[in-house]
């Protein structure tokens, strides 16, 4: 019991500690692929440190929501990361049905972020809030059809149990998992506002979806928002990697090495996808998301009917 708690706490510390490094890696790879040297890998840490020292300014007409929304976001991310299994270690919060809690925790974070954006009163943030709300609507089924289909097949409802039950033994199951992971990749790209949904490097406010919501925040608020963004990306990365992590491995060291290897491959994939693709037109994004849902549904249908 005690060792599990310690393992859980270590998992949380790993996730929180490594999240900016993950984002830094992706940016460095993107730069190398486009022929530049790019920023150092540890740049996100320095940026966060810089933000920590700056003065926090809030809009004059904003209410109490803008005060506590950044903090709420960060705390929710912490709780969500406490529910993720890293390697063999059982997460700190794990019970039957926690997959739904996980999805809606992230939803709650997004909800408050949208409210805070609308609270500021500027039209840019309102536009970003509207877009974010719409695309989140279409992205939610993807989560349930992907993870939900794995849950349906394994019969478990706790995230730790679900991932634990993935045994890569027969071919059709492997194909199923591969297609699930493609679908989860599309989900990750949407939720974390990466290309081809949203360009994180754009400076044109009219084209932003997520970045524009935090445009008027500064200092500690911005620090909390940015950090939550990094953690969210890392969380989705772990969701993706854990599909392939053969939980039937019995050595922690091998497991850890496979985990790091998987993380590196994921950063490569994200960087390549961001470099190659250009952004979709806004009106095409719902059908892109529906496509990802369709893949999930198809997957579920095929796997159920081959049994």
């Amino acid at each position, binding site marked *: 019991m005690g060792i599990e708690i310690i393992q859980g706490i270590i998992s949380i510390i790993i996730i929180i500690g490594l999240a900016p490094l993950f984002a830094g890696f992706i940016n460095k790879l993107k730069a190398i692929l486009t022929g530049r040297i790019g920023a150092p890998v540890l740049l996100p840490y320095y940026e966060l440190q810089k933000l920590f020292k700056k003065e926090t300014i809030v809009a004059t007409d904003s209410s109490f929501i803008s005060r506590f929304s950044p903090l709420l976001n960060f705390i929710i991310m912490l709780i969500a990361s406490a529910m993720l299994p890293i390697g063999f270690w059982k997460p700190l919060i794990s019970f039957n049905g926690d997959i739904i809690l996980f999805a809606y925790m992230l939803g709650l974070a997004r909800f408050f972020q949208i409210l805070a954006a609308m609270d500021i009163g500027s039209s840019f943030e309102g536009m970003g809030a509207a877009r974010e709300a719409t695309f989140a609507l279409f992205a939610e089924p993807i989560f349930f059809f992907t993870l939900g289909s794995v849950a349906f097949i394994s019969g478990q409802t706790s995230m730790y149990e679900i991932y634990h039950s993935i045994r890569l033994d027969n071919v059709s199951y492997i194909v199923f998992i591969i297609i699930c992971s493609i679908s989860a990749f599309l989900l990750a790209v949407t939720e974390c506002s990466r290309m081809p949904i949203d360009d994180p490097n754009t400076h044109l406010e009219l084209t932003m979806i997520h970045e524009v919501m935090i445009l008027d925040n500064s200092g500690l608020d911005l620090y909390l928002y940015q950090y939550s963004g990094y953690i969210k990306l890392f969380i989705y990365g772990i969701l993706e990697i854990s599909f392939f992590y053969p939980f039937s491995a019995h050595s922690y060291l091998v497991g850890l090495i496979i985990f790091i290897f998987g993380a590196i491959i994921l950063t490569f994939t994200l960087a390549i996808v961001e470099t190659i693709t250009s952004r979709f037109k806004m009106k*095409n994004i719902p059908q892109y998301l*529906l496509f990802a*849902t369709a893949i999930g549904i*198809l997957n579920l*249908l095929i796997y159920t009917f081959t049994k």
Partner: protein
Amino acid sequence: MGNVLSILFCLSLFYVCITSRVKGFVTVLRIQGILLSIIIVIPFIYHFSVFGIILPVTILLVKVYLIPKYINKIILDLDIKRMIEPTIQQFSFLLLVIVTMTVIFIVTHILSQSTELNVIPFASGFSAIIIGIYIIMFRKKLIVHVAGFLILENGIFLFGTSVASELPVMIEMGMLLDVFVVVFLMGIAINNISTTLSGFDVTALGRLKD
């Protein structure tokens, strides 16, 4: 193995629904041709025979090379605009396709309890047939109608392999050649339509109404 290829076939059908380029259809036809020829070749890997290799090679030749080349030539000759103009939005179309596919899979599963059939290729083939009909109903450009017809034929082919009928090779080749000649004639017709009538939309074909 046949199941995996059928899954890829279904994914190509989804791609057809969301693409908005005319050349996207040609790409999908090529992919489907390659998938179909691999599906046909699989039983022959074990007992190899010269006779058994004729059909996959013919399929490869006709569906992957000749027909897409011919359609590309038509697109180039007529300078058809690259975008298709759909009659209903892409999003609702994709939703319709997902619902249809789900219904077909469920119905096939129910049917497979009385007869023994290979569920996945059967359902994939049948959904390709229905999606081909949807493309013909909901799209305006004539060249897209021809592509929809070819997807319908691909669906029939996949469906035929799953029924595990020992249709003689001759009939399959006859069907393939028929499809090729039909597409050839349609191409000539489209050529003439775009030069004599004003455009290559179905809206141009309105004279013969009662």
